[in-house]
């Protein structure tokens, strides 16, 4: 059957399975991706069905994982690597930033880097240090990388297909606290392009722009605002690099109010870029400054404080009120 209801993690698993089936050059690499099926079971059963040559348990070395993926890509493979948690990508950051991102440009376009780096990211699961971070801006700032994040099962399935098919390196951020949320996946649908934003809910008074784990929070906020008579549009950006500014502009020209929501610290974050560009593009349409809701300029706090740290319904609604009050 083409349409199935799947948890987000399972949709990713199906997507990887399909990629392994259709292209013999696709490889899965990472710590614990084999027998264990990854700590979140995203690669569950894949080694059993495709063997240790295609689904590779790698040594515990992130720089090694990404560095060898670069070499495999140079040799014509399409590695899909898993970094176990957001906070553990940094040993590989050097390889990603100084090598992976620039290889295509340095080789005068003669070399392609079809490497996907899957990273479970974000908070809300009560984890210990280094297991709850949102480092997307650090990657989006680097020319040569695409940075995307699905917010639901259907996008998880399709965006991962598209990321694997892309000849550019893609940093694929998976919202770990949505892994268990179920959603419909139509495996025969024709998906929108990887970089395109999606209107997750139509509205006319204000636009909430979010991606990944915050889309759900924004949809809940929009539903709550509706009860107070406010019509809120929710845009799921899906891609942080590139950003679909045309879609945001279209929405803002209609609603004239924009609030950007993400978990990552606001300072120098994705919201800052969006606010600046939309202010340039929509200066005469805006009735309020672009507001941002996100994390503070402080290390991600211990689990018992993450509820205070993470943008929740109330903080989003507070920003909606402030924007509409201008």
């Amino acid at each position: 059957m083409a349409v199935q209801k799947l948890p987000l993690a399972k949709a990713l698993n199906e997507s990887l399975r399909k990629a392994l089936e259709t292209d013999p050059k696709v490889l899965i690499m990472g710590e614990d991706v084999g027998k264990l099926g990854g700590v979140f079971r995203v690669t569950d059963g894949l080694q059993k069905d495709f063997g240790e040559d295609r689904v590779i348990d790698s040594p515990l070395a992130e720089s090694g994982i990404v560095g060898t993926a670069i070499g495999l890509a140079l040799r014509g493979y399409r590695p899909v690597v898993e970094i176990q948690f957001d906070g553990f990508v940094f040993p590989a950051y050097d390889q990603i930033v100084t090598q992976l991102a620039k290889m295509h440009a340095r080789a005068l376009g003669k070399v392609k880097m079809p490497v996907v780096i899957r990273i479970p990211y974000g908070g809300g699961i009560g984890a210990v240090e280094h297991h709850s971070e949102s480092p997307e801006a650090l990657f989006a700032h680097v020319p040569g990388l695409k940075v995307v994040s699905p917010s639901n099962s259907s996008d998880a399935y399709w965006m991962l297909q598209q990321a694997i098919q892309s000849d550019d390196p893609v940093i694929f951020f998976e919202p770990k606290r949505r892994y268990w949320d179920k959603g419909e996946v139509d495996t025969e649908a024709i998906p929108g392009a990887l970089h395109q934003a999606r209107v997750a809910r139509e509205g006319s008074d204000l636009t909430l722009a979010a991606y990944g784990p915050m889309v759900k929070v924004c949809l809940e906020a929009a539903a709550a605002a509706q009860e107070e008579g406010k019509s809120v549009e929710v845009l799921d950006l899906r891609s942080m690099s590139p950003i679909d500014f045309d879609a945001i502009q279209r929405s803002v020209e209609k609603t004239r109010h924009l609030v950007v929501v993400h978990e990552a610290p606001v300072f120098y974050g994705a919201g800052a870029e969006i606010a600046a560009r939309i202010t340039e593009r929509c200066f005469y349409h805006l009735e309020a400054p672009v507001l941002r809701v996100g994390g503070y300029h402080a290390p991600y706090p211990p689990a018992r404080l993450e509820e205070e740290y993470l943008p929740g319904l109330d903080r989003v609604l507070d920003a909606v009120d402030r924007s509409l009050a201008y």
Partner: protein
Amino acid sequence: MTVESTAARKTTRRSSGAKRTTSAASAKKAPAAQGAEPELVQLLTPEGERVQHPDYDIDLSAEELRGLYRDMVLTRRFDAEATSLQRQGELGLWASLLGQEAAQIGSGRALRDDDYVFPTYREHGVAWVRGVDPTNLLGMFRGVNHGGWDPNSNNFHLYTIVIGSQTLHATGYAMGIAKDGADSAVIAYFGDGASSQGDVNEAFTFSAVYNAPVVFFCQNNQWAISEPTEKQTRVPLYQRARGFGFPGVRVDGNDVLACLAVTRSALERARRGEGPTLVEAFTYRMGAHTTSDDPTKYRRDEEREAWEAKDPILRLKAYLEREGHADEAFFEALEAESEALGKRVREGVRNMPDPDDMAIFENVYADGHSLVDEERAQFAAYQASFADGEVK
């Protein structure tokens, strides 16, 4: 000791007929490169019999032996308590040390007060011998803080979750000791998985080049989450040291006496200005990697059962009893002490207060920072607006 003499020593040891236990990891599908069974320094057999080793001798009083036993029993008790507190929802996560007590207590008891320890996240036994209050170890696992103790008050650094990072900190600290002309030493703990990280290999390089007084203590518990040691290395880990230019030694990690003797000797070597040593404690993680892990997905029960026969605590108990070093009263008193420790830890955790909301903004910088000040004020106003609403 030079690299050559390490190799020479190995031959002497092999012919000395010192008793060796077999290695489970190399017994199963050993890669061709692994070669002969690596040497394993052992002073106490799994049956609790004292054996001699030409290079590592140790002479402990009955009281010292009872002390090691007490440390292991209380550490295991603390660990069991933490595991059950996690199951009861009091802790978000727990990384159990079950099975690794001898490696930790043996190496920990080799340290002097002025030595400095850089642990990973499982060194509860080392923390114990350093005098860190066990309850303090639980804060980060409960989610109330990211550390929970002042590293300088017991020369026991904070737990490090990012694999391998601390080995470089340890090396730098040791370089500082050497610069100061002091004779203390540093010990860095890490796992077999960590040996694959660039940081650990860079720590080996720096420590060798600068002759830093550091002991690298690798607890090879056979697994890095689901991956066996063979997925990290094709040669026995202790042999790695040789390529970096310092000696490596494999010790029976379930033998507290051997761990103590080998670590002591490595520390003395460091103090004498002879540089780093890699100690590989060959041991076993009897439990899950952490409470989030499901070992049934990747390992067989028989493996654990085989290692249970080498239990570090039962082994020392057998020796104490055989030699008449401890009587029934000692074991009973220790049991009571264990119970009391369990109770103290349980109550300590349950009464551990949640941090104040404002803690988010504490200690972000040592100096002030205007952005943090601004966000703190906004946060406070926002929280206060809520409280007003509730009062109405």
